[in-house]
């Protein structure tokens, strides 16, 4: 059985999470101010907010890349202090190593963990098939389009069946059409795999479309302004959702917050 089996999504508990950046020249920056957030197993949570609201800091803390100033994060009752294999990360740029083939890129986490690469090769192929890139394993990243490369990056994040998939504006660098397709495909894949997903984005519409819950953050200091439960049946259709008054209701609610905070200014 080389098929990719559904993963048990991780349970994430963020309590009183605070991050202060100490700078040499200017005053300290309070990037996150006592954030509380509980994420259920297998749910899709989107975080939206303007630049500087601490959403990337949140991801960096979750991934164990940056030390926590105060508070704590637990994933499946395990405290996060350093990077660990329950988490897969997809960044804004695909960050594929251009000197490695697609399959070698996907197997990079396995290599780093010192696990048996051969054992995972079939699984890597299977993941490629799932993202519509069957037979692309021997190609180099430079031979792929931006959308294909980001798909490979998603496969790389999924190779270890992480309970929590962190995505940091993964479609931000893609053109509008590719982005639309990627959003649809991500939903399909997530429904099948069942990982817990934390999806960070600037795009209000893609957040509402994809997520079970949208967390709206505002900057200086980074705080949660709204925790919005999105109650729409799945699978959602990108083309239809734009005619759906319920969808627009959610989008408006988020925009109103940004307008009230002066992040979006109506003319």
């Amino acid at each position, binding site marked *: 059985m080389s098929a990719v089996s559904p993963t048990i999504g991780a349970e994430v508990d963020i309590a009183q999470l605070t991050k202060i950046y100490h700078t040499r020249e200017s005053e300290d920056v309070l990037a996150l101010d006592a954030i509380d957030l509980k994420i259920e197993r297998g749910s899709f949570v989107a975080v939206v907010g303007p630049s500087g609201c601490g959403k990337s800091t949140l991801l*960096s803390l979750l*991934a*164990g*890349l940056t030390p926590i100033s105060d508070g704590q994060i637990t994933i499946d009752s395990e405290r996060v202090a*350093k*990077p*660990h*294999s329950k*988490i897969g*990360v997809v*960044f804004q*740029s695909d*960050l594929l*190593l*251009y*000197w490695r083939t697609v399959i070698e890129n996907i197997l*990079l*986490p396995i*290599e*780093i*963990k010192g696990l048996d690469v051969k054992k995972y090769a079939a699984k890597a192929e299977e993941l490629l098939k799932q993202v519509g890139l069957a037979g692309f394993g021997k190609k*180099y990243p*430079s*031979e792929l389009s931006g959308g294909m490369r980001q798909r490979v990056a998603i496969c790389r994040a999924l190779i270890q069946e992480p309970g929590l998939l962190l995505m940091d504006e993964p479609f931000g660098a893609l053109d509008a059409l590719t982005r639309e397709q990627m959003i649809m495909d991500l939903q399909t894949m997530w429904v099948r795999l069942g990982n817990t997903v934390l999806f960070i984005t600037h795009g209000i519409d893609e957040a509402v479309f994809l997520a079970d819950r949208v967390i709206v953050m505002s900057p200086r200091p980074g705080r949660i302004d709204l925790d919005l439960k999105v109650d729409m049946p799945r699978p959602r259709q990108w083309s239809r959702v734009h005619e759906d008054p319920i969808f627009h209701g959610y989008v408006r609610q988020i925009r109103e917050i940004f307008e009230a905070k002066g992040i979006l200014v109506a003319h």
Partner: protein
Amino acid sequence: MARVSGFSGSVAVQTERGKNTIKAKRKFRLQQLTERFSALFLAVALLAVWQIAVPLSGLSEFILPTPLAIATRIANELPLLASHGYITLFEVLAGFGMGVAIGIPLSLLIFYSRAFEKAVYPLLVALQTIPKVALAPILVLYLGYGWAPKITLAFLIALFPIVISTVVGLQSLDKNLVNLVRSMGANEMQTFFKVRLPAALPNIFGGFKVAISLSVIGAVIGEYVAAERGLGYLQLQANSLFDTTLNFASVVAISALGVSLYFILDFIESKVAYKRDSAK
């Protein structure tokens, strides 16, 4: 070639324009051919001018030998050129090898230690402003007439480009790539070998190629100052005997040495380093 087949595709569709298209196609092919071999054409043309101009100008072979005379001499003197050539080759390789053996660890120290960088980098740049060639007589004074001063000179010249290009290569890495592998749980050793080094290889080889060409210059200059063997020494001998043809033959041998070493490095690079833009 893809563009050529594109042309033939349009031939089939637009028959009324057939003749013009075939003409355009021919013109295009010719253009491609000239582009590919333009350097060779120019070289051959210059050599031909040289060959013809020497007898026409009445210059004796003794002042300026013709390319054919030089080529014949090279063919006749191959054993002599080789016996001196391998000495120079050894000096170049030893100097370059020392450059790599010392330059790479030095680069790593500069890259990983801020204090070391602050202390060593300015010194290295200051040393670079000394014309290394001017050190040759001093090196002979200390190291004698053997291979030691030549190797030292080749090494001193090779060191700087190797260190600079390696440090720049390591520093120019996208920081997000480091975050990526760290998020996979990589330690610094793994980060270095999986990401930092492969990403810096094109830069490092760029430095190697500059360094090997300069090493040849270093070794030959060392031989000019004081030597009993080597291509530079052979040249001086030819000079003192007014054997201009052999003198030119030595120059060709020295360039051949440099060019071959350059292309050997280029070949090794193509085997170990994958360039970002080389995929097609």
